[in-house]
């Protein structure tokens, strides 16, 4: 009888423990990183405040940094000054930096850049289609694309400076 209770108990408890151990071991809000190693989705977006367009196809051969941000996003404001400070050095070495305004109005985007600095153009994505094409689930998200148009790195949340610099250095 005791053996039977023990075996039935183990059959119920062990799978439960395994499921819980697997479940507690990960962040339920974390999305899988699907885009690293994939070809960067093509885009041709209007540049905020300029009326011109920038297309990914025109940037072939040069590494591209795409930073999705919004004026209402607190972590964006935290990472932005570092990006503004870091961009010029890499721009001189041929890297293209582009901001993408995510679910926000151009006027507020401009206010954000006045406040936190501006070192590169911002693309507009009024329908949100570009963000969906890139698999953006929230802001900030930053994509590093190599000269062949492959996404080599995706940062969910603020960029990690060491990894960001290491990734770009490897492309240059």
């Amino acid at each position, binding site marked *: 009888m005791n053996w039977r209770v023990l075996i039935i108990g183990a059959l119920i408890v062990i799978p439960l423990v395994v*499921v819980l151990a697997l479940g507690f071991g990960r962040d339920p*809000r974390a*999305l*899988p990183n*699907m*885009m690293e190693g*994939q070809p960067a989705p093509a885009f041709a977006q209007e540049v905020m405040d300029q009326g011109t367009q920038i297309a990914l196809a025109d940037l072939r051969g040069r590494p591209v940094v795409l930073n999705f941000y919004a004026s209402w996003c607190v972590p964006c404001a935290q990472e932005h000054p570092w990006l503004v400070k870091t961009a010029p050095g890499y721009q001189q070495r041929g890297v293209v930096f582009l901001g993408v305004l995510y*679910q*926000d*109005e151009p006027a507020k985007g401009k206010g954000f850049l006045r406040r936190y600095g501006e070192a590169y153009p911002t693309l507009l994505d*009024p*329908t*949100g*289609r570009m*963000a*969906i*094409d*890139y*698999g*953006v*689930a*929230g802001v900030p998200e930053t994509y590093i694309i190599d000269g062949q148009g492959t996404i080599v790195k995706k940062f969910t949340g603020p960029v990690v400076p060491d990894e960001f610099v290491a990734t770009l250095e490897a492309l240059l």
Partner: protein
Amino acid sequence: MKTVLALALLAGAALAEDVSSASTGASPAAASAADPAPQPLDEPPLLPPPASDAETDATTAVVSDGLRCPVCQGLSVNDSPADGARAMKARIRELVAMGYSQEQIEDYFVARYGTWVLLAPPAERQHWAVYLAPVVFLGGGLAVIGWSYRNRRTAAPVAGAPAPTPADEGRAAAPADELEDDDLEPYRRRILAELGLSAPGEGR
């Protein structure tokens, strides 16, 4: 099912309205702005475009019901009032209108957000447990019920039947009497002795 769908749609629409009216003018141009030309996927659509707007809307609702909103996470794209989900829904509608099948659209989103984006995980690889568990638990439950039912049936003759006759009742009561007479007698004697009384038939 249809009523549930309709209610969900109504609730979603009401929520979306609340949000946009709460932030009057603050709501970005997303989806509602003059849409640029529809952008096809890398593959051609498998179906002919829907015949009517109503058909497009219905298919859009079905597809977006099965996809999770990446912003709010607990809701489907169809139910979520978040701007990100509305943009996704607009994109789904655009693809449906071009004739893309539900599977093609789901593949498009899975390629970007992972199978996580599907509210019903696909029946494959590591997800098999999700689909097997209910069957296992149902089988286990039925086995327990069957086992206890059989136990009860085999135990029944001992406990209930046959109906006791008056003679049997007399016999059944006998052990208690015997216990009282034989086993309890030493204790009775001891109590009486301690009380300074003598057991009946025992002189002082």
